[in-house]
């Protein structure tokens, strides 16, 4: 159960681009075109983020007069000052506890359900699995108004729990966990079962630690999804004290702060709300990107 270091992805790459390999002519027209295309897309993909970063430390006038410029003249942190005097800090706090609760709930409940569907034999299992797949097919946006109706009906509307509870489980997460548990050899559990361990104990102490790659993947996906969620928060509450970042910042564009040319403040807000996800992304990006097939449990 020791946390072995994962094999860095680089080791898996076949050592093909060595000198002496046949396709090393450095700048054939094809290669040149390839790098030109790469450069073009890199500019398209990175420039908006650069502009966002730079504009947040510009003055309003500079942002308007010089929207493409990457050098603020002068540097000006007024946007951040003004942002801190709005409800922005409150929204940040709300987003944090909501995203953390949703993530913990999803990871735990989805694993439980995924394990039951993958390993526990009981009647009705395949019917439940079919139902969960059917649920995946329901477009989320169609549920926006219906969800309000139910929250309102059961008296949960406009309460903190309304932000969290409906998001605590999701069909896609159950699916990911089920797939993963099925790939773990059954033999691992049998020893524990013979020793008389309860199903929950086998799940918690034996199987779950082996599911680290899937758990990390689901943690990241859930955190990112709940941090970025907008629709649900719009229909779940109206109390300004319960605004999350997405809902709060969206009001910046329509409210007085969005009036005129106050772009530095909206860019600063966009920047700050991107940072937590960016950190998670940078730290765990190979789980986002590669599908996490490295070092689960070898010890």
């Amino acid at each position, binding site marked *: 159960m020791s946390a072995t270091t994962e094999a860095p992805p680089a080791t898996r790459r076949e050592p093909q*681009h060595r000198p002496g390999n046949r396709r090393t002519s450095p700048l054939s027209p094809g290669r040149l075109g390839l790098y030109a295309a790469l450069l073009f*897309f890199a500019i398209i*993909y990175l420039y908006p*983020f650069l502009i966002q970063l730079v504009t947040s430390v510009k003055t309003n006038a500079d942002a308007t007069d010089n*929207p*493409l410029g990457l050098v603020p003249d002068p540097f000006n942190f007024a946007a951040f000052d003004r942002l801190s005097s709005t409800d922005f800090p409150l929204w940040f706090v709300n987003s944090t506890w909501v995203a953390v609760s*949703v993530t913990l709930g999803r990871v735990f409940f989805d694993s*439980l359900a995924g*394990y*039951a*569907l993958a390993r*526990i*034999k*009981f009647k009705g299992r395949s019917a*439940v699995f079919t*139902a969960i797949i*059917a*649920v995946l097919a*329901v*477009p989320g*946006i*169609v*549920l*926006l*108004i219906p969800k309000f*109706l139910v929250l309102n*009906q*059961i008296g949960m509307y406009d309460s903190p729990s309304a932000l969290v*509870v*409906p*998001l605590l*489980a*999701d069909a*896609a997460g*159950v699916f*990911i966990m089920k797939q*993963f548990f099925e790939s*773990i050899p059954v033999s691992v559990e049998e020893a524990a079962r013979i020793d008389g361990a309860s*199903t929950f104990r086998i*799940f918690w102490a034996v199987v779950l630690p082996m599911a680290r*790659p899937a758990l990390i993947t689901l943690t990241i996906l859930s955190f990112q999804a709940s941090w*970025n*969620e*907008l*629709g*649900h928060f*719009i229909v779940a509450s109206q109390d300004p004290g319960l605004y999350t970042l997405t809902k709060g910042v969206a009001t*910046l564009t*329509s409210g007085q702060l969005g009036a005129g040319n106050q772009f530095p403040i*909206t*860019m600063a807000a*966009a920047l700050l*709300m991107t940072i937590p996800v*960016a950190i998670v*992304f940078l730290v765990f*990006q190979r789980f986002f990107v590669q*599908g996490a*097939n490295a070092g*689960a449990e*070898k010890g």
Partner: protein
Amino acid sequence: MTTATADPATTTTSAGPSRRRRPGGGIHGQQARSGWTFLAPVLVILGLFLVGPILLALWVSLSDWSGQGSPLSSDVGFVGLDNYTQLFGDSGLIRRDFMTSLRNNFYYVLLVVPAQTVLALALALILNQKLRARGFFRSAFYFPSVTSSVAISLVFIFLFTGSGAVNGVLGFFGIDGPVWFSEPRGVIHLLGGTIGIWDPAAPPAGLTGSSFLGLSWWEWLSGPSVAMMAIIALVIWTTAGTFMLMFLAALQGVSTEVTEAAEIDGATRWQKNRYVVLPMLKPTFFLVITLGLIGTWQVFDQIYIMSQGGPAKTTLTPAYLSYQYAFQNQDWGIAAAMAFVLFAIILIFTGVQRFIMRDKDAIAEKRITRRTAKARADRDGDDPYVDQESIGIYQATTRSSGGTGGMT
């Protein structure tokens, strides 16, 4: 979908007396108990916040509930399909709004789905080459897919202002960019004007004279408005990254033996991609287009933040219109009916796509790619892994749905 609430009691008793298993007794009984206990939280949450809402909304769409009190109280009347006929049958503002939103969203889907698919494939083909800093570029292209739609929309509002960065770049090429978000004119109208088919200011009477479902043919043929084009650009830019990863995973699953055989046979790089690699990507195309269709019909976040349906209702979409009718007009029956029609549209579009792209080989091919992927994973050391496709599906469903976290 009501099967989600399948009752454990009925399923165990239905086993019948011929089975040796008695409910609650022996190892099987324990298994069943723990099985349902493990599933309980997910079933309760999905039942209460997914199946429940659908049923309640179905009732509201057939009722005259005004938003006051409970929709289940006795003074709420059953009106049959009245709300639905208002969307399609009765001429009036509601039908006009709804048809406008369908038109807008249709043009949006028509542009976004092919463009994001092609862009994703192009990025994946580039990154599938041997390049320096490949990981860096992959992250750069993918990053917008993980950032908040609110943050990205704010950035794009700034980029697309009249004096913004986009018009600045267009200025380099001598093009006088429009004031994007206050320009309601449709691009087909404008293009037709440029090439001289018609004069957008004085449209042909043949098209304005007759109408279909409340909109004149001239209005149906507008194309997406200039304002909508800005949103289209944003969405293509944002979502291509997720789909790029799916294509990239599939490309890496294409065995080098096959491509090398093509090279030995003297195929050019283009021929190799077109006739060898591309056909092997068909299952991925299918997935990407399906997810694209599902996502694009649900566009909401970007409209909510950037345009609120304006200018001149040219960025209204069914999802946003339904929200407006519910929360602003308190027209809950109409709003719920719109949601169900939208659901039906998504089912129809994905069904038609399934039919068009049907291919007996596809299933077999998919099985083969699965098998090779699994073989590869086995070779890599028997570690269980999370497959790329599920992550992509999770990403695509949570993201382009307009942000309804997961599919809860």
